[in-house]
């Protein structure tokens, strides 16, 4: 009866439950420049009429193994049963693109088959560029606002702290992590050695890994804002104790150390903000925030100076970003996050303001999605609300520049016509990676920005 009801499943007495006709598995793709070389892709086969995706149960061969036609290569679990899948060609299993336990949709490539041993390396590099698992690692793509309120000694302190606090980790050589934490780390591609454990005796537990994955975006330094709030709340701190970092603080520590590898320099500028303040007053009632205005102004300036929106990923090249995504640092309890206003140069100020409000709400609820905090190309950090008039920010790894914004305050200035007057002025200080952004680049970017801010009619279109 059951077998009648499930016609598509054909129980087989053969020991492997092999599909009668393994579906066409292998497509040929020729590299345009190489006519002789044949690297074939092994595709997820359709093992039943209803199958849309398959799970790789196990690879029966490993990379580099020689395969002959008709040999079983991989066991695939479909919606009905597990089946051995055979190869139609002789060759070498060059690269496995979907690991055991991974799921791939029918027809997508799961491995590469090289015709000769010589092509294995080619195939491997090809796999690396196309494999879904090789997408940029979280640390390199993570946009992060890193700023320290003029505190070089603090950086030193951070650098001297060990990454792992587990007593038995033998100076970080050995990582003590719970079974689930290990599984999660593999899944979320978090390097366990860089996660600080909060479990018993500093063991890395699942929530540390989850936090570390999320903290790829949180990878920031303690800000003056935070320091201030900590100082204000210092009542709750037991003096004379040593408190290990939280996961987020551990991530901050690492990013701070990493930033030391980037040769940065700083350029300051003073803007007169009377016109901007007037504009803000006028459109405030429509929900526009100063943050959005500044982000918009910065984005418009960046559009004219693409080099300031670039970054140096490998020490050898400029990476010119296609969109201008302004990350804005937001202090949160126990850390910091950088929500990103994407395409800030193209989105109008009202939408941008609404977007900003949404992002801040999400950040407070800890619901930001990765693309909402790790895609920034330029970072803003504003400590003006604390009365800070100027400060210096640390460049988040993976980006080209960060702008530290001080308070806008009434200042006595000499005007061009020889009089003394009162104007609102705001000091900014841009930290940039000198490998890609040079002094003149920054200077002219700041000049453009000054023009926009001092004549802000373009901000509202």
């Amino acid at each position, binding site marked *: *009866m*059951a*077998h009648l*009801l*499930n016609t598509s*499943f054909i*129980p*087989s*007495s053969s*020991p492997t*439950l092999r599909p009668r006709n393994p579906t066409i598995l292998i497509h040929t793709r020729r590299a345009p420049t190489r006519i002789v070389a044949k690297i074939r892709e092994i595709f997820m086969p359709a093992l039943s009429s209803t199958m849309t995706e398959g799970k790789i*149960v196990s690879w029966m061969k490993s990379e580099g193994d020689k395969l002959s036609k008709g040999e079983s290569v991989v066991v695939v679990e479909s*919606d*009905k*049963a*597990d089946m051995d899948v055979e190869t139609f060609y002789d060759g070498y299993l060059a690269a496995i693109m979907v690991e055991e*336990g991974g799921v791939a949709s029918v027809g997508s490539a799961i491995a590469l088959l090289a015709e000769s041993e010589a092509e294995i390396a080619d195939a491997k590099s090809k796999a690396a560029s196309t494999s879904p698992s090789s997408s940029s690692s979280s640390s390199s793509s993570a946009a992060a606002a890193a700023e320290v309120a003029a505190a070089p000694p603090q950086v030193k302190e951070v650098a001297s702290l060990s990454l792992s606090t587990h007593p*038995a980790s033998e100076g970080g050589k*050995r990582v*003590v992590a*719970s*079974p*689930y*934490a*290990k*599984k999660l780390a593999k899944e979320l591609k978090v390097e366990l050695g860089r996660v600080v454990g909060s*479990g*018993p*005796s500093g*063991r890395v*537990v*699942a929530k540390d890994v989850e936090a570390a994955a999320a903290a790829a975006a949180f990878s920031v330094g303690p800000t003056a804002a935070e320091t201030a709030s900590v100082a204000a709340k210092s009542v709750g701190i037991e003096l004379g104790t040593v408190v290990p970092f939280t996961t987020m603080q551990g991530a901050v520590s690492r990013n701070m150390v990493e930033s030391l590898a980037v040769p940065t320099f700083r350029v300051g500028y003073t803007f007169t903000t009377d016109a901007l303040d007037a504009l803000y007053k006028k459109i405030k009632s429509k929900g526009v925030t100063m943050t959005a205005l500044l982000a918009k102004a910065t984005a418009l300036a960046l559009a004219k100076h693409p080099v300031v929106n670039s970054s140096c990923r490998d020490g050898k090249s400029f990476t010119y970003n296609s969109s201008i995504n302004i990350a804005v640092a937001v202090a949160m309890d126990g850390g910091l996050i950088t929500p990103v206003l994407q395409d800030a140069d193209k989105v109008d100020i009202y939408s941008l303001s609404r977007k900003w409000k949404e992002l801040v709400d999400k950040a407070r609820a800890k619901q930001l999605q990765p693309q909402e905090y790790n895609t920034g190309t330029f970072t803003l950090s504003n400590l003006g609300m604390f009365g800070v008039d100027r400060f210096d920010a640390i460049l988040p790894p993976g980006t080209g520049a960060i702008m530290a914004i001080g308070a806008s305050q009434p200042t006595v200035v000499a005007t061009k016509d020889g009089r003394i007057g009162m104007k609102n002025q705001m000091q900014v200080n841009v930290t940039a990676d000198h490998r890609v952004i040079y002094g003149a680049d920054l200077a002219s970017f700041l000049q453009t920005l000054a023009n926009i801010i001092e004549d802000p009619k373009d901000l509202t279109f």
Partner: protein
Amino acid sequence: MQSSLSLSLSPHTSLTIPRPNQSSFAPSAKPINLRFCGLRREALGYFSPLLTRRVQLNPITARRRSAADLVVSAALSGGNGSPPKSFDYDLLIIGAGVGGHGAALHAVEKGLKTGIIEGDVVGGTCVNRGCVPSKALLAVSGRMRELQSEHHLKALGLQVSAAGYDRQGVADHANNLASKIRNNLTNSMKAIGVDILTGVGTILGPQKMKVGSDKVVTAQNIIIATGSVPFVPKGIEVDGKTVITSDHALKLESVPDWIAIVGSGYIGLEFSDVYTALGSEVTFIEALDQLMPGFDPEIGKLAQRVLINPRKIDYHTGVFATKITPAKDGKPVIIELIDAKTKEPKDTLEVDAALIATGRAPFTQGLGLENVNVATQRGFVPVDERMRVIDANGNLVPHLFCIGDANGKMMLAHAASAQGISVVEQVTGRDHVLNHLSIPAACFTHPEISMVGLTEPQAREKAEKEGFEVSIAKTSFKANTKALAENEGEGLAKLIYRPDNGEILGVHIFGLHAADLIHEASNAIALGTRIQDIKLAVHAHPTLSEVLDELFKSAKVKAQVSSPVSEPVAV
């Protein structure tokens, strides 16, 4: 077929005391209720051969039935070493576990005056510290698992808000179940007149026992059924709190965040199911190269994919835990691992608790085996295929049997019971050899694993030796309507058989209710039913039993269907 039953020359014969009053022999005329029997006979052909056999077997089986004939041994025994002339009991069983209980019930049914000695609590390991309380925990873990599986519930259209549990409540459930079953067991024996003698039993000499410190009792036949205790390898310090055995774990005094389980057999696997459902993370430590070494490799592989990989479990294989130190002074439990082959130190683990599930050791110390010249082998009592105890010189010890974990043949509660029944059959005049290949085994994880007979490698080895062909048939639970209705399509049933004559060599099931499904196969093996016959049997639709129906139907047997009234085949 009767020839297989006649017993012309038993090794007992020369040693038994001939009894004059043959007239008192009153065998029950009703068919014997054989629960674990490789023999089957029709009721009609039963009586006459028994009469013929009676003549041959009387010296062994005739017993005094009147109370007057039972004389207290103290008056008669002529000192240690010489067998008493008359006995307090026809059958005395040492150990009131499941094996002893099964033997006692069957002995009473066969009209034997039966006593059972228990030095601890009735029920033994299974009821108090084993199968029974662990089933209570597994029942909880199964439900927790269902309630936690959002994906699964959603697929069924169910909504359940966060599931939680109360550890003490769960522990109480296990404990209450154990005491309920223990009472049932005790009452069932008392009700039919089994004497329960409390105290430690020691063998003084042939057919003579000491119970407690001074009471001496005699018995025509004695069955050792003392069972086993958890085996703890050297170097492991068990403190009962952070380094524990199954005995402690079943009390569920704590649910550690991270527990290492040493050994990935039945016990370890079941506990991993319980602990992960209750929120623990588990690390397996297995000395062999792969997890679940006792299972059919294919089933093991699938089980690993379902029971290990997606859960919060990791594992170290090919390593020995040489030293385990319990947690103290704020330090965690420390486990030192060495490579099983090279003996080089491999790793050190720091966990919250460690469960030692490295198997069980026979509990035979202090039993007085030296008084009957029996030397244990690694603690196990050596026995022949009829459970008769073998002494240090390789001779059979008359009137002394050993069943269950203590003999190590098959360390399962129901195997002990089957062995006990087999012994009772023998001492009441019917030769009987238990076919251990027909005894099923089950592991009550979610889903369950069950098996009977040989694994595929064992079958292939046997086939090569004996020169026959082996075939394999498999069916997936994914093709079963009932399993799909339950949304539990994960599973596999595997049949290992001889294509030439349709003999079932082994059946292995991994899937929903596998432990209940296996009996169709184990009964078929016990009764010698061939595939070509059983495949014509009808199964209700839609039921999980159709998995086995499919399995039998997919087997390709060359032999023709035997006649509908099939000849029973002794196996």
